[in-house]
């Protein structure tokens, strides 16, 4: 399936291009706000829906709208907590399907809207569901929009888990101390029609999400779920591990997540493949994470530039993983994207240059 028309609305910019440019210069939006390091919009953003409207409108501007209108289009909203800030004011507003319904009403190209909510893998899993839906001819196009806010609700929750870092996060670093929460919205459009896109799209070769059946909030020590997920993805996408040029990992910068991922890549002999996590630029954006990180990876491929793993300094693991210390100009054809999250979910997908 074809993938492109990416948008990002983040504290680093209002388009994928702008966000990528600022990341290229090493900028991060993670700031100390009253003692908590997080990436948040400058004005206090209490609602997700207007951001999703803007993000989808920008993505649609990168495609041929007549083609979009004439073919069958699904909307997938990816979110963990939606409009959770309304929990005390108007509980009905917190129902996640309000988002998909209101977006469907706003954009007449959308035939149906659904919501995927699977914790931190929601974003990547939404892309996988989109690809599956098009592959099975249920839809021609899918608009995937992911978003979450840096709400007090999630900040307090992650604080209780001792999962937050008291400084900008350091993915895969020896001294990593935890994650930073980030807020962002990101949209990607997938289609069976290459001509839908104004700019050359890429190809999404497939993916899956496997449960490690181990623990609801701790990653599997031997990385079994992630390894199985990646193996299944390579098999269904008909890709050999030698073909992978770059890995965009989940890399939350918590002690156990990064250890688990490093173990998986090491066991799969991915030692010489460049790896990054993008959490050091805009934090962990929860339901948006898999989409915003894929959008940046699409920009990386388009610009032949891999971004450094911001925050990473010192190698931790026995493995010889090639974690990017600096931006690297290199042509990449095939990338692996992974996400793991609460509930034991491990998602992976392969994207390739046409």
């Amino acid at each position, binding site marked *: 399936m074809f993938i492109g028309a990416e948008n990002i609305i983040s504290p680093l910019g209002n388009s994928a291009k702008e966000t990528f440019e600022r990341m290229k210069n090493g900028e991060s939006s993670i700031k100390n706000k009253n003692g908590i390091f997080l990436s948040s919009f400058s004005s206090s953003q209490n609602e997700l829906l207007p951001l999703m409207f803007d993000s989808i409108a920008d993505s649609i501007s990168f495609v041929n709208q007549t083609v979009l209108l004439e073919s069958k289009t699904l909307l997938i909203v990816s979110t963990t907590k939606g409009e959770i800030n309304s*929990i005390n004011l108007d509980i009905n507003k917190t129902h996640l399907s309000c988002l998909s319904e209101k977006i469907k009403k706003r954009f007449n190209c959308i035939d149906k809207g659904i919501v995927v909510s699977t914790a931190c893998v929601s974003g990547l899993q939404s892309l996988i569901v989109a690809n599956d839906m098009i592959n099975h001819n249920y839809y021609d196009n899918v608009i995937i929009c992911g978003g979450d806010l840096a709400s007090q*609700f999630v900040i307090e929750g992650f604080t209780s888990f001792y999962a937050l870092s008291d400084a900008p996060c350091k993915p895969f670093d020896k001294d990593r101390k935890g994650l930073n929460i980030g807020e962002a919205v990101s949209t990607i459009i997938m289609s069976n029609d290459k001509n839908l896109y104004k700019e050359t799209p890429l190809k999404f070769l497939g993916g899956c999400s496997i449960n490690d059946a181990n623990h*609801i909030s701790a990653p599997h020590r031997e990385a079994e779920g992630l390894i199985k997920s990646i193996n299944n993805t390579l098999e269904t996408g008909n890709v050999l591990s030698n073909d992978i040029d770059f890995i965009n990992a989940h890399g939350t910068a918590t002690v156990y997540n990064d250890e688990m991922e490093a173990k998986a890549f090491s066991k799969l002999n991915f030692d010489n493949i460049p790896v990054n996590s993008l959490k050091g630029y805009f934090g962990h954006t929860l339901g948006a994470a898999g989409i915003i990180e894929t959008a940046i990876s699409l920009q990386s491929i388009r610009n032949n530039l891999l971004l450094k793993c911001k925050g990473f300094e010192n190698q931790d693991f026995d493995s010889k993983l090639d974690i990017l210390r600096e931006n690297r100009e290199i042509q990449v054809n095939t990338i692996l994207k992974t996400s793991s999250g609460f509930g034991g*979910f491990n998602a992976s997908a392969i994207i390739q240059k046409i």
Partner: protein
Amino acid sequence: MTEILFNKLGTSVKVTQSPIDNDINSFLKEMYYKLDLDYPKFFKMDNLCKLGMIGTELLVKKNKYLFSRKDRIGIILQNKSSSLDSDIKHQEGIEDNTVSPAIFVYTLPNIVIGETSIKHKWQSEGVFFINEELDYELLSQYSNILLNGNRTEINIVGWVEVFKNQFKLHLGILAKSTSTEKLEEVLS
């Protein structure tokens, strides 16, 4: 009385609350002992996970032979309120300064898939959708995708909803051999 109904083949189960029956906690506890679960972790879970686990258990007990391949199982669930039942408890914790990770971890709907997978050691492929009501079309489509794509051999598919004292469960089994069968028929 809460009603538990199977279809003729025992491949679907529906749990419906009567309008006057308002105690979800006593129902879940009663079912735990009735099913002889012997799984103390059950008591740490939120009600959404407990209900999902009871529903799965009812189906597994009737269809044991189907669940032999633990790595070939799909779990496709949907509900209306996501994890709002636990969200409210976490929000109360924020307000009284008693936030607990044991509650926060349940503020995600897919945890029910995780808990069920752990209980049965299923390295499953799973997804959780949210909608106002049961979307037969979507759930059938995704079940077909997993079965026809050879990603799973058997899927547990359906609705598991809990909000305060209101709850409803409607789950069915879709297997490769019956993949042409419509979800509506299995759940009827």
